[in-house]
């Protein structure tokens, strides 16, 4: 397999508004044909970064290379990049067809070509029956598809999506996540999506970047980020994580009550330094049968039944917050627990991640 080609290289890009630094020296490579997610809490700089890719903001520093050409100062209407706005920004005085044709008319293409390309994209996005409707006559999901069709019909090198599913309800959202992925494969265009929803980027992205305070914390596949978060913030932000605060030792972390959590200590952490050991809820076993490196006992405080599995809140001496433990429906049936029960928890050293506090 050959190394995938880099389409977009973001090179030490910074942007400040007055005294506020929105994006602080971010470097990222986005590959041809990939579904890339920019993830972070609000105010992390992801939207500013996206607006710089679209051309609505100009970086104060750094380069944005598209196919090797610096487009940092190119006007939005002069770059082969399209943005799907969070508000969809459909033109309210134009029909669906006129909205989708608009971008091709700007390219001064022959009317016949505009017509056939618009017809094709309306078919792909299942909008043919709505072609003559005005945006206000469409549902949220239909508007979202029009916004997508309007951007895709331009056949951009790069499609940017700003919180594309934010306005949809949860059920429709799940369906649209898969729909977006399917479309991305079908049209073969690189997608960059901005989201604050970590679940969404785990589901959709081939690779993702986690941002905080304008800085890039980690850029990798969803699996790698979930299993090997770069720091405590990423571990906490992506998925659910149990933390045990303590001091770093040679082969783990010593908790406040003297209990030892075994795990691989990063080389940068010197013994005695403040550290935190962490483990995912699904890696913890209830009443472990065999030998496990880490063990503790606690009291069940609450149970949350979630159909596929059962989530337990267990009060342990290890941490001020209750441990979250995820038990499959199967296991819960075999050995039922209820609120107030004493339970034994165990997990392997390989499932422990240790970070500087």
């Amino acid at each position, binding site marked *: 397999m050959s190394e995938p080609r880099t389409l977009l290289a973001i090179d030490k890009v910074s942007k400040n508004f007055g005294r506020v630094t929105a994006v602080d020296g971010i470097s990222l490579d986005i590959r041809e044909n990939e579904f890339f997610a920019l993830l972070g809490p609000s105010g992390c700089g992801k939207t500013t970064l996206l607006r710089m890719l679209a051309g609505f903001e100009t970086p104060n520093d750094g380069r944005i290379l598209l196919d090797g050409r610096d487009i940092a100062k190119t006007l939005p*209407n002069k770059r082969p990049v399209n943005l799907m706005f969070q508000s969809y920004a459909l033109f309210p005085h134009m029909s669906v067809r006129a909205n989708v044709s*608009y971008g091709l008319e700007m390219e001064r293409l022959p009317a016949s070509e505009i017509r056939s390309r618009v017809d094709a994209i309306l078919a792909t996005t299942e909008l043919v029956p709505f072609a003559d409707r005005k945006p206000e006559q469409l549902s949220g999901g239909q508007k979202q598809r029009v916004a997508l069709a309007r951007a895709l019909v*331009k056949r951009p090198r790069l499609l940017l999506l700003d919180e594309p599913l934010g306005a949809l309800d949860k059920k429709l959202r799940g369906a649209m996540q898969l729909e977006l992925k399917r479309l991305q494969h079908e049209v073969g265009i690189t997608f960059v999506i901005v989201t604050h929803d970590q679940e969404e980027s785990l589901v959709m992205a081939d690779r993702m970047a986690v941002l905080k305070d304008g800085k890039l914390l980690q850029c990798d596949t969803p699996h790698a980020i979930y299993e090997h978060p770069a720091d405590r913030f990423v571990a906490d932000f992506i998925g659910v994580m149990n933390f045990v605060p303590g001091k770093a030792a040679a082969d783990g972390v010593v908790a406040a009550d003297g209990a030892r959590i075994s795990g691989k200590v990063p080389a940068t952490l010197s013994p005695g330094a403040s550290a935190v050991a962490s483990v995912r809820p699904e890696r913890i076993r209830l009443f472990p049968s065999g030998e496990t490196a880490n063990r503790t006992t606690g009291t069940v405080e609450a149970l949350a039944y979630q159909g596929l599995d059962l989530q337990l809140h267990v009060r342990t001496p290890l941490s001020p917050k209750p441990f979250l433990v995820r038990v499959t429906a199967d296991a819960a049936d075999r050995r039922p627990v209820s609120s107030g029960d004493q339970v034994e928890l165990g997990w392997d050293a390989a499932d422990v991640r240790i970070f500087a506090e």
Partner: protein
Amino acid sequence: MTRPSRSSLLMAPALAWLAALMVVPCALVLALAFFRRGIYGGIEYTFTLENFGLVFDPLYAGIFLNSARIAGTATLIAVVIGYAAAYAIAAAPRRWQPVFLFFAVLPFWSNYLIRTYAWIVLLNREGLITQLLRWFGYTGEPPSMLYTEGAVIAGLVYNYLPFVILACYAPLSRLNPELAEASRDLGASAATTFRRVILPLTVPGIAAGAVFVFVLSIGNFVTPALLGGGRFQMIGNLVYDQFLTANDWPFGAALAMALIAIMLLVLMAQALAANRASGHVTQAGGGTDG
């Protein structure tokens, strides 16, 4: 079922007011137009259509056309200047917008007559503008600005500009800024974005402002009297003269009715155009009763 009765109850004071102070006087004036003028002034109560015939006399029809031309020119200038001002205000930082709007309507705080007299001070032969020119070294004849058609138009534009600014500001400030960005993103230049996105979406405001200026201008008589020096008669002056100088109330009434007819036509045309242009887009009402 309680709704219609309650809403008609709420509307009753306004309807009574309109009936007593608008419909009745208008009906009286309309009736007046069908009578004959007495030989020594006054009214002779015999039915005639002569007064309306006289309205179409080339002499008076010419004044109508002239008024429409002056009002039309004033409207055009007011819309261009007012739209630009409204655009600039809507583009300003949010917290400054009320301040700018306050300054735009500030002239309304003083009397219409006083404001028009101020223009005389400005445009006079040795007025402020001439003195400013002199200060810059101009030594020739003072320009004749007062008592020209230009002065009348300038006065009308000045007086009604705030209406246009307010009428255009409303749709401009409500416009989602992402619409213009979307247009740029899809490959349109700034000029094309204005022509195809911003302008069509703010036409209702332009139309409302334009109708205001036109209707108020075409019937105006103070500005042409003061700034036109009586040399540029508009319908308003003509009506005024018939009632107060010539003492021909029936003809004055017929002229006034013709003026009202023109205004109604303009308003209806605007309503029709607004309906067609926006279709079901801008009006948020409609289906709220269900």
